[in-house]
């Protein structure tokens, strides 16, 4: 009896252990599923995502008449004939068509395909289906017993239903066919010779208007876009729900995107495996939520998402978000980027959620810091904003928002559509765009280029600042951005907008100068040369010619660059930016002292590199130091820039320094001491031939 008791106990233990293990497996599975955050199904019409959105009343289906007609027009020239064929021999299948009633079949209007013995479905391209009157089918180049199981015509991505019998009942034998035998599996016949022909008359079907209805439909009405998000219920969006408290980091806003898994990873249609493809066909809907720095949900809608970026997407993914009313909300009002030339700051309709992915390893702030520098020196550059990005609940790292520079954005900045622009790409040839043609005509002018002459058409101040940002940051991949001309005003000038400066600061490993430190890397040689290495790029050629051929422009550029180094990219600016990015990186949870140290060193030492190279290139001699002393509460206006007390700057030999007192509470300037010598006047304007110590002397302090 005792023995049985022991066995019973052992069995109970096994049962208990089994239950525990099973539960363990269950919980492990649940944990895995949660970690993977799998949300299968398609987002709007099909799949769980669509159901969730609809059940929660977050989207409603629009009636047909309200569907936006902004979708791209279909290519009406594309139609297809698909035919399912069973044939015992390898041969050739041909289809001829006629476009007019009495037109004869001819070889110019023929589509053919090699067929293999067996049962297969072949596809033949046809011209615009709306114009076709009759189709002649030559099913075989050899005598054979043939079965046609199905004939399908496609136009505008839609199947054209010809008849209840898939069009097979419309087939008529012309020659070389014994007779057609219809059954449940299609139509069979014997091709008696090499001239066997059948005919399908579409003009007869057309009377029923079926073909016209489809073939002449002008706008695509894709069910995918027949939804709008209701304004309320932002918290119910999957992209909102997937974010929990642990996803937030101090001072970091969060953008969350939730895709249908297939839209991301399907091997042939998903975004991730097909990153290189572009265009509307590669846009996928996603649920999008944006939380601000304090963790408050500010935005939620469905959006269209495409991949963004060039070959560096191999390392990381950047995304382009399209806010369209067909998806939900038509603008992203939480980001109103400013740009220099416009006073307007509109919510974006297209947003790039960008990863600075160069070089591999994630150089977190290359792009944003370079944009900061470009903005500081007066370039036309869009505002950026750092963010964390989560895709299907998985953190992607440090990203930043930047508006997508295109026609729509320029339209919103200008407030009108009278402007000309083109994007700088390696594929842009000299004659690609009217604006580019115009620029090259100016640059290729054999006469001497002058600031005055060229300046009538081109904003040369913008060009100088634009190229300064490149040479300062050491941006090796700078054939990017946009050239713009406002055509609404007769005196408008072409200017450039900076874009994607991620290859800044870090030494270009393909360069010959790999032994240099980052801050020592190429500067002037990027943009100025007697024979610019960028033959496809109008900017360096124009800049180099003007600097060589017009002393006035050279002087203008030297003065500008001196001022930018002294007054804009000074130590205060460098410290403030480095401190900001260091604190953001620390909030993110990383302490990459190597990277931040490199940036710090770059910002502090780069101005000297630029100055020395400028001296060398233009044979200016060593620069001279000018210091201004005085009471600490006095503010100055030096060379047109406001500066605090204790200013010091470097000046090319022979250039001028202009100083006047800005804010000096309860003080009135009496005279100046320049290297101990008295100079009278409210303002000071002296030529610099030696190091200068300037001291303002106020009344009552003599």
């Amino acid at each position, binding site marked *: 009896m005792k023995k049985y008791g022991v066995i019973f106990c052992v069995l109970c233990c096994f049962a208990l252990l089994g239950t525990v293990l099973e539960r363990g497996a269950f919980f492990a599975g649940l944990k895995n599923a949660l970690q*993977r955050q*799998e949300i299968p199904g398609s987002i709007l019409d099909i799949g769980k995502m669509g159901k969730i959105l609809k059940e929660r009343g977050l989207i409603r289906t629009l009636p047909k008449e309200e569907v936006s007609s902004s979708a791209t027009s279909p*290519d009406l020239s*594309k*139609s*297809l004939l*698909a035919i399912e064929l069973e044939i015992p021999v390898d041969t050739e299948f041909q289809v001829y068509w006629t476009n007019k009633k009495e037109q004869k079949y001819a070889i110019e209007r023929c589509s053919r*395909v*090699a*067929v*293999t013995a*067996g049962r*297969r*479905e*072949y*596809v*033949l*391209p046809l011209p615009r289906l709306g114009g076709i009157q009759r189709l002649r089918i030559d099913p075989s180049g050899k005598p054979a017993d043939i079965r046609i199981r199905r004939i399908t015509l*496609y*136009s*505008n*991505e839609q199947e054209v239903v010809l008849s209840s019998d898939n069009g097979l009942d419309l087939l008529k034998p012309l020659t070389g066919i014994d007779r057609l035998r219809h059954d449940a599996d299609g139509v069979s016949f014997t091709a008696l010779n090499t001239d066997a022909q059948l005919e399908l008359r579409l003009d007869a079907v057309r009377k029923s208007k079926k073909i016209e209805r489809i073939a002449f439909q002008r706008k695509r009405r894709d069910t995918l876009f027949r939804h709008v998000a209701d304004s309320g219920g932002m918290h119910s969006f999957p992209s909102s729900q997937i974010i929990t408290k642990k996803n937030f980091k101090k001072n970091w806003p969060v953008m969350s995107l939730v895709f249908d*898994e*297939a839209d991301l*990873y*399907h*091997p*042939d*249609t998903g975004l*991730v*495996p097909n990153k*290189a*493809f572009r*265009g509307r*066909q590669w846009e996928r809907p996603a649920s999008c939520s944006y939380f601000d720095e304090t963790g408050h949900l500010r935005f939620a809608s469905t959006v269209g998402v495409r991949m963004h970026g060039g*070959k560096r997407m*191999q*390392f990381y993914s950047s995304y382009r978000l399209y806010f369209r009313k067909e998806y939900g909300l038509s603008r992203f009002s939480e980001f109103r980027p400013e740009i220099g030339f416009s006073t307007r700051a509109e919510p974006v309709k297209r947003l790039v959620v960008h990863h600075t992915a160069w070089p*591999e390893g994630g150089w977190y702030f290359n792009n944003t810091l370079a944009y900061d520098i470009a903005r500081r020196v007066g370039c036309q550059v869009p505002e950026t904003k750092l963010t964390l990005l989560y895709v299907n609940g*998985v*953190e*992607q790292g440090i990203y930043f928002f930047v508006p997508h520079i295109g026609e729509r954005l320029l339209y919103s900045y200008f407030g009108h559509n009278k402007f000309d622009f083109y994007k700088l790409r390696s594929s842009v040839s000299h004659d690609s765009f009217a604006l580019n043609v115009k620029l090259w005509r100016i640059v290729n002018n054999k006469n001497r280029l002058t600031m005055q002459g060229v300046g009538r058409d081109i904003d040369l101040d913008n060009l100088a600042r634009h190229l300064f940002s490149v040479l300062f940051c050491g941006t090796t991949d700078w054939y990017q951005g946009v050239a713009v001309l406002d055509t609404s005003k007769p005196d408008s000038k072409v200017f450039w907008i900076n874009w994607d400066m991620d290859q800044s600061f870090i030494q270009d490993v393909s360069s010959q100068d790999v032994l240099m430190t980052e801050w020592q890397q190429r500067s002037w040689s990027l943009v100025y040369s007697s024979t610019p290495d960028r033959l496809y790029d109008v900017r360096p050629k124009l800049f180099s010619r003007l600097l060589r051929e017009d002393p006035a422009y050279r002087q203008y550029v030297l003065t500008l660059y001196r001022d930018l180094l002294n007054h804009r990219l000074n130590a205060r600016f460098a410290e403030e930016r480095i401190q900001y990015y260091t604190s953001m990186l620390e909030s993110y949870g990383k302490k990459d002292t190597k990277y931040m140290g490199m940036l710090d060193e770059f910002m502090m030492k780069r101005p000297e590199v630029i100055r020395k190279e400028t001296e060398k290139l233009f044979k200016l001699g060593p620069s001279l130091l000018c210091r201004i002393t005085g009471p600490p509460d006095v503010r100055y206006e030096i060379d047109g820039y406001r500066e605090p007390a204790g200013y010091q700057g470097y000046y090319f030999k022979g250039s001028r320094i202009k100083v006047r007192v800005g804010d000096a509470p309860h003080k009135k300037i009496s005279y100046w001491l320049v290297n101990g010598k008295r100079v009278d006047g409210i303002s000071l304007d002296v030529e610099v031939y030696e190091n200068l110590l300037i001291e303002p002397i106020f009344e009552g302090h003599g």
Partner: protein
Amino acid sequence: MRICSLNRFLKVMVNFSVMLLSIMLFTLSEGEATAVEKAAAESPPVLPRPNQVWKDAVSGLEFVWLQGGCFQLGNRDPGRTGFYHEKPLHTACIDGFWMGRYEVTNAQYRQYKPEHTSKETGGRSLDGDEQPVVYVSWHDAKAYTDWLAGKRGNGEKYTFRLPTEAEWEFACRAGTDTVRYWNAEEETCRYANVADLFYRIKRVHYHNCSDGFIVSSPVGSFPANPAGLHDMLGNVWEWCEDRYGKDTYTKNREANKPKNPLYQIREDGVDYRVIRGGSWLSEPNSVRSAKRSPSPPASRYNVLGFRVIMEAVPKERLPAR
């Protein structure tokens, strides 16, 4: 008298039943033994010839023997800056192995999981017995290979598994060093089931020819590659054993261990497995011997199946160490 007759009748019936039961049991046990013996009898040859075909009588899978060797793994196109993750071209040395002659079909997979359906797409079935199985995750494919091993009985524990991507490319190239084993893109429709003209109205990228199939085709509908393997390119993507890494090949080359490479490093935040070969929905760029793509192991798609390899010699037959 009547009771006596009844007893005798019952006795006879019991004896008869026992006899019948014994015969049935004998027959059954004999049948089982025969299957195992048959499988053993049809075991793959220990010293196979190159490209020799062997059919596993138990699962119905056919295998082709690929004599091992060294080859150049990766993208051979030096001029293109893209295809970073397919570079650098480097040497890999593979032991001989039995490669599935075809992709695993729906019928074969349903032996393991009878309820499996490969569904349909756009009104066209993907679920035909001879069509390759799809809507299977990497885990499903692994479970199938484990099931195959167990299926062969107690005496024969073969190692069935998914190919590594080096093995897959070795098998796909079959000695060729061109972009595809038939090379010219224009000839693709003769050799593979791909996104053909049918996708002209749906997509920007397609093959400008007609291959005879709108969706997946029955396996073996297209000519085999030089090693005798069918549908290595096109029809359905095939799961590989390896984890996907963007710079797998760089690391492989740096490691300088060309023997049977298998990449198993899980990269930050992602755990993709490699898929190879392209499918009936693949544009020209995806139908290449060097093409590799990432896919989450839990994903199931209408273009994604697998094929099985069998390791060269059953472990049990190896001499004891």
